[in-house]
């Protein structure tokens, strides 16, 4: 215990002298995967170089993801005595300019700043708004993401200095009963998407008989279009470790396992580092803090299989086998890894636990709505203006997320896919649905782990359904027939419709196949794989019918089911489209109306991408004489 307290004291001092009251400028840079993808590492080099050129000593702190990924790379500067000021979409040149202004002229360059972390008076003084008052951030509540983008994820001291591991110590002092009561009062439900009450899962595993027990953190975030777990681990790995530690203590496990996704190398690297720090703090190993509790954590890297997010498949994979689900019961809480009682929680669930233990169940319960308490993170992506990682109280209407937090769409909104590839596409009439486990299910979707993919009218719903079912088809483990054959049937029919060969009875057949899959598949993958198809059939039937009866894809996605034309009233004759056309299908002189030859057009979409006037649009292919005669003969 003494060791931990002396580490904590040191960490607090360090945080105070190096961050809160630093006597040299502190520069924060978001270098989670999303920041890196936007070019943060080039910016980092530029910061180091510029500071050296200017002969100024600065402290560079690499932080995780603060949320608004569309603003990445995000660089913050805290001059001594001033709060952090954020500069966004920073390029190498922009970073140089800002640094020169701040470091040499002591001018924060408010015209280039996006927000600051100080109080209102600083806004008055500088004219810079508060960062967390930005439209995307204001409606959010940060419980899980509290430290993300705020601390250096590779420096455990930063976590310690921000109430790190106090939740664990409280549980260690008060005992498992306190933890279970707090979880129950908090109303925390599984954030992997199933929504099973967390306290119940813990209780079942705690009550299960067995000498050896395991706790597993499911970090196999396989949903395409979702990155909440990656961002959390990359930005605040200790929160997840603390949750795992608490879970281990409460259920009586001596071994924690983190099953991490292979595609997330940075997350794995940060976890390894954090585990080593944990050991240094005396919070891992034999008889932790002088108690009778011994615990260790190991990382198992997944090898790439979506179905391994299902808990029995995950266990099979941990045991070195093909990741195929098995029927339950027995549930893992009774018979899991190596046949021992095993608690499996999602990364976000575990990441939420420390805050609940620190502040109590009552505190957590205040967020959200009855039966759906607390906050949930979502990856808000697709066609919204403000993309990124968000955290909102459960019960928040989809509309607020899409329109207010996401800033709406450029073209008309069409649908939002919730719950990942096994979720559903909800249309404009469902936008007022509050995000709760039950409401999502009632609308034919699922909560899932938290991917929210927004689509506008340039997205074809039939193509999306084909995309999702194609994913399920590839990821189906093949163990049970309904899923193996059902995904094939759905995929074949959708491919056929997209090729323009759809027939009216295809829709009926798809409904039938989907129904069989829901009723008879072995695991959640097969039971839910048809959700994207059925939900889109329910809400966008006319779009399917247009594909089948009119051979028309209004979104201009399904090749051959539309043709491009140039709208004379919109074309300003800028020649951009003509320049990018690889087929030479567009002709036109500067400032004159351009023409498009449909016979040469390969529908590669390049012209649509460059046209700022949106003058190139998809229209139905005129029915040819032959075609008309043929349909007369057939009818």
């Amino acid at each position, binding site marked *: 215990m003494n060791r931990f307290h002396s580490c904590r004291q040191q960490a607090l001092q360090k945080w105070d002298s190096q961050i809160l009251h630093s006597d040299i400028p502190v520069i924060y840079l978001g270098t989670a995967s999303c920041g890196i993808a936007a070019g943060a590492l080039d910016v980092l080099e530029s910061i180091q170089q510029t500071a050296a050129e200017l002969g100024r000593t600065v402290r560079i702190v690499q932080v995780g993801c603060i949320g608004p990924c569309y603003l*990445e790379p995000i660089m913050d500067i805290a001059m001594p005595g001033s709060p952090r000021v954020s500069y966004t979409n920073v390029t190498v040149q922009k970073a140089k300019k800002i640094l020169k202004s701040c470091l040499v002229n002591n001018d924060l360059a408010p015209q280039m700043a996006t927000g600051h972390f100080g109080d209102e008076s600083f806004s008055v003084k500088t004219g810079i708004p508060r960062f967390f008052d930005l439209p995307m951030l204001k409606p959010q509540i940060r419980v899980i993401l509290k430290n993300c983008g705020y601390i250096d994820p590779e420096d455990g001291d930063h976590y310690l200095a921000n109430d790190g591991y106090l939740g664990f110590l409280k549980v260690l002092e008060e005992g498992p009963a306190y933890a279970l009561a707090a979880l129950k009062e908090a109303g925390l439900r599984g954030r992997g998407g199933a929504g099973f009450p967390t306290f119940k899962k813990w209780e079942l595993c705690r009550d299960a008989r067995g000498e050896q027990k395991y706790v597993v953190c499911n970090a196999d975030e396989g949903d395409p279009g979702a990155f909440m777990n990656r961002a959390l681990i990359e930005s605040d790995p200790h929160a997840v470790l603390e949750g795992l530690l608490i879970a281990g203590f409460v259920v009586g496990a001596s071994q924690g396992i983190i099953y991490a*996704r292979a595609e997330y190398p940075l997350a794995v690297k940060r976890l390894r580092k954090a585990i080593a720090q944990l050991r240094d703090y005396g919070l891992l190993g034999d008889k932790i803090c002088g108690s009778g509790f011994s615990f260790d954590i190991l990382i198992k890297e*997944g090898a790439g299989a979506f179905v391994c997010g299902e808990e029995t498949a995950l266990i099979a994979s941990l045991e070195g086998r*093909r990741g195929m689900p098995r029927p339950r019961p027995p549930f893992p809480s009774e018979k899991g890894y190596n046949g021992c009682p095993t608690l499996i929680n999602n990364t976000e669930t575990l990441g939420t636990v420390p805050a609940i233990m620190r502040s109590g169940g009552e505190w957590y319960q205040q967020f959200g709505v009855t039966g759906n308490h607390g906050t949930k993170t979502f990856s808000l*992506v*697709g066609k919204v203006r403000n*993309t990124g990682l968000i955290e909102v109280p459960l019960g928040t209407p989809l509309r607020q997320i899409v329109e207010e937090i996401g800033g709406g769409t450029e073209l008309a909104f069409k649908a939002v*896919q919730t719950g990942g590839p096994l979720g559903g596409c909800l249309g404009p009439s469902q936008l007022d649905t509050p995000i709760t486990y039950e409401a999502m299910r009632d609308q034919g979707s699922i909560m899932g782990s938290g991917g929210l993919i927004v689509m506008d009218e340039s997205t074809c719903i039939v193509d999306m359904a084909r995309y*999702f079912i194609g*994913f399920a088809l590839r990821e189906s483990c093949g163990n049970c027939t309904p899923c193996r054959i059902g995904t094939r049937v759905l995929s074949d029919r959708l491919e056929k419709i997209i090729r323009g060969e759809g027939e009216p009875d295809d829709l009926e057949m798809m409904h039938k196949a989907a129904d069989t899959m829901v009723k008879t598949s072995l695991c959640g993958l097969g039971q839910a794989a048809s959700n994207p198809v059925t939900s889109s059939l329910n809400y966008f039937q006319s779009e399917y019918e247009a594909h089948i009866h009119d051979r028309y894809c209004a979104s201009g996605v399904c090749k051959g089911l539309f043709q491009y034309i140039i709208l004379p009233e919109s074309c300003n004759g800028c020649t951009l489209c003509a320049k990018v056309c690889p087929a030479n299908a567009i002709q036109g002189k500067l400032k004159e109306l351009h023409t498009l030859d449909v016979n040469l057009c390969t529908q590669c979409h390049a012209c649509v991408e460059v046209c700022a006037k949106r003058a190139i649009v998809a229209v139905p292919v005129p029915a040819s004489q032959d075609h008309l005669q043929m349909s007369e003969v057939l009818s």
Partner: protein
Amino acid sequence: MAKSITPDLEEDLVDFTSFSHRPNQLIPILQHFQSQKGYISQAAVNQIAEMLGISEAQVYGVASFYTQFRFEKPGDHLVRVCMGTACHVQGGEILSEEIQKIIGIRPGEISQDRKFELHEVACLGCCAQAPVVEIDGKIHGKVTRKKLNQILEGL
């Protein structure tokens, strides 16, 4: 039945001392082998099967189940196009077609000069920067045709 160990495998055996030789270690062992040699060779399958006391079919069965494992020598530059939902919505498929046009191979193939290898992957988790392409481990976000050409030309 003791089989002779090919010389290049002896090195890997030394590295395997940190693993317990139990079948439940199969996946980490395969991962370790691939990180050392770049792919799972036939010799690797034989070797691992013998080491763990399981059949070669079992080793191959597990290895082929997971997308991470590959059975062919990698190309010089590994191009992975993200096919995640966000990337799909933002034109990931179009991007993949464009890459195929530029480097002249289809997903899953290696170019004849072994310079490029192309894969379509489920999701790289950088959805807010969609569409995303990963080249030799470096992730590029908001990739346009122009940006793509610049990156590929630089290789």
